[in-house]
């Protein structure tokens, strides 16, 4: 029996900052102190507070160590694990209690207090490579209940009543999707999982797969029973090697326990799951393109109808749900539809995971009830915008979404409200931008992404996105006209109406929403040839303020192109025709004498 559990984050964020080496050092040090029988080291999934990785939690005290380095390990083992003295200097600052050997519970820190973890409930708690730990936290109980006590129609009724909607972005009611597929008769049906998370900045599906893979498998089996399917496919990105590895381990363990395979729980229900690796095309997150890709063909979308519930994978009735959607299913079965429906807003039930990124203090994963405001997420949970800058806007929904300006920060976030203010839920990427971000530049960034990722099958998307990008380039380089802005808007609306799939239909959203809320920035680029945020290189110049310059020559010595001239102790001057706008002078100046405008 272990007296202490040491949980080390093995998610992608912490792994890339060396948590593997920490685990190895921990095991060595624990062995050297003869504590192997007393202390158990567990590699878990993501804890969510990625900004402070690598993260380690020591139970039973619940001490939350952040930014741990391999060289800190001997101290933690000697002091904490051997002598019971918590190493305060490594604690997450919010959990420190002065003059005490105990810590404040993580659940009472600003980052976690407002969160409500349903989809992420096991991430950072269990070892994802050990099916026993999943079973210990009531794993596969829901599957057992469904197979032994419920009819397929009962299952669909519970999911429908819970109000669960697709977490991939569009928000289609999950129960209704399952019902359509259940009603269509066929000799074979399929259950698919969309784990082709492609939005820049979104990583919640990845964290669920890495931290709690069995939750997805269990939910897919439940869905298979509900619609009458015996085969499932998980379409996961090959760029997620840890997720792929843990999914495969999970599938193997579930098969070994007979939780996948034939006659599960001694019933007539058979279900198995296979992995299919995606090669990284963004369009393969679109449902028809994803299924075409699973079939082994080039991943391109096709017109709907027929919808996949009627003719999907291999022409058979198929349901496709996103990872996060599945992660809610077993909980709904066990705790009931009413429990789930008690969280959230009138039309959006439950919780949503957001991947916080950009100009925010606590980068990471947060799960909050639907209806939480952007202000609560950014300022209270996320810790606000760092370095004294001010919040300008947040981008949700990735390349298909839009911007939420500061004036809309108090709108409760749910599917319908986000659409009403010109953005969308998307998969839940939430990128925070401050006053140094140029909104035209952001629109350009997302357009560059969609131009790269357009599959080329339909003309509006293939040619239209490229033309949009060209107009944006023209504007940010200072050559735009007011007519260009009108033309941009017209082309956006054309793309929305005429593209084949959601990729093209939503590609103009970043442009339209920035035009809606930040039209003045577009106009400043065109009429004044000025970038208000100082981000567009072609429109900004560096100047030396004469009264602040002490003539220390530091800038002149660091300029890579010799654009700065002047004599010692006399104000220097930048030759804007030579300047390449690298910003090296501004970084080096100790007197804040260099400005960008």
């Amino acid at each position: 029996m272990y007296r202490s559990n040491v949980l080390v984050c093995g998610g992608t964020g912490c792994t890339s900052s060396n948590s593997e080496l920490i685990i190895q050092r921990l095991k060595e040090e624990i062995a050297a102190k003869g504590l192997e029988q007393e202390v158990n080291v567990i590699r878990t999934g993501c804890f969510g507070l990625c900004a402070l990785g690598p993260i380690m939690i020591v139970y039973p005290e619940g001490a939350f160590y952040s930014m741990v380095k391999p060289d800190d390990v001997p101290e933690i083992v000697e002091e904490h694990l051997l002598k019971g003295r918590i190493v305060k200097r490594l604690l997450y600052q919010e959990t420190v209690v002065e003059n005490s050997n105990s810590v404040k519970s993580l659940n009472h820190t600003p980052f976690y207090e407002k969160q409500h973890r349903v989809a992420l409930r096991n991430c950072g708690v269990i070892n994802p490579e050990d099916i026993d730990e999943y079973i210990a936290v009531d794993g596969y109980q829901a599957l057992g209940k469904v197979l032994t006590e419920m009819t397929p129609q009962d299952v669909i009724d519970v999911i429908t009543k819970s109000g669960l909607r697709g977490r991939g972005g569009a928000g289609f009611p999950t129960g209704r999707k399952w019902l359509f597929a259940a009603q269509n008769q066929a000799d074979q049906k399929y259950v698919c999982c969309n784990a082709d998370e492609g939005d820049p900045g979104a990583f919640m599906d990845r964290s669920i797969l890495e931290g709690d893979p069995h939750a997805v498998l269990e939910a897919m089996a439940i869905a298979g029973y509900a619609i009458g399917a015996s085969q499932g496919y998980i379409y996961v990105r090959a760029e997620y090697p840890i997720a792929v590895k843990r999914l495969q381990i999970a599938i193997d363990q579930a098969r070994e326990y007979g939780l996948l395979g034939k006659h599960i729980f001694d019933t007539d229900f058979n279900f198995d799951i296979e992995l299919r690796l995606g090669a990284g095309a963004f369009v393969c997150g679109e449902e028809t393109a994803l299924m075409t890709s699973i079939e082994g063909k080039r991943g391109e979308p096709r017109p709907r109808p027929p919808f996949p519930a009627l003719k999907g994978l291999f022409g058979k009735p198929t349901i496709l749900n996103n990872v996060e959607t599945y992660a809610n299913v077993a909980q709904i079965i066990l705790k009931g539809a009413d429990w789930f429906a008690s969280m959230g807003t009138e039309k959006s039930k439950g919780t949503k995971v957001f991947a916080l990124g950009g100009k925010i203090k606590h980068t990471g994963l947060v799960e909050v009830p639907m209806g939480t405001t952007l202000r609560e997420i950014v300022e209270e949970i996320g810790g606000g915008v760092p370095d004294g800058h001010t919040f300008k806007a947040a981008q949700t929904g990735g390349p298909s979404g839009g911007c939420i300006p500061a004036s809309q920060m108090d709108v409760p976030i749910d599917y319908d409200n986000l659409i009403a203010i010109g953005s969308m839920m998307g998969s839940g990427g939430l990128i925070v931008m401050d006053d140094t971000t140029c909104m035209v530049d952001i629109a350009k960034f997302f357009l560059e992404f969609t131009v790269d990722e357009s599959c080329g099958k339909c003309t509006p998307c293939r040619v239209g996105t490229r033309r949009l990008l060209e107009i944006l380039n023209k504007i940010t380089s200072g050559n735009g006209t007011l007519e260009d802005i009108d033309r941009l808007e017209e082309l956006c609306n054309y793309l929305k109406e005429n593209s084949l799939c959601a990729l093209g239909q939503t590609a103009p959203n970043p442009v339209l929403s920035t035009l809606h809320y930040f039209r003045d920035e577009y106009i400043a680029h065109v009429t004044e040839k000025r970038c208000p945020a100082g981000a567009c290189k072609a429109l900004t110049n560096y100047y030396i303020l004469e009264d602040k310059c002490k003539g220390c020559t530091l800038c002149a010595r660091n300029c890579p192109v010799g654009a700065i001239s002047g004599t010692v102790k006399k104000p220097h001057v930048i030759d804007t025709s030579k300047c390449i706008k690298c910003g090296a002078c501004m970084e080096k100046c100790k007197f804040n004498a260099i400005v960008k405008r």
Partner: protein
Amino acid sequence: MKSLAELQAIRDKARGKVTLREGQDDAIRVLVGMATCGIAAGARPVLTTIVDEVAKRGLQNVMVTQTGCIGICQFEPVVEVVEPGKDKITYVKMTPEKAVRMVNDHLVNGNVVTEFTIGANSK
């Protein structure tokens, strides 16, 4: 997997792996002095005995943890039992055998083993 009972059996067996990680605000805390003085006096076998006994009896509401030196080194190994809303009980000069009795009498049945406490030993 043949039945829910089979799943339940795996669950019960695996519970012990994860219960430590569920934070309990109202748990009884058992603190074993594990500074140099405590370790020298034999606190380690006392600690492991308590952990094993607590697990053996399936006590869910008990959290066993170490603490540093509280300044009464001549009485080590020291074990403190902190129950929410009650006075702290300090056991001194503990041994694995005494620890077994402490778990049984105090933690399971709620009877403080007065003869092992500091009050009975400092006279």
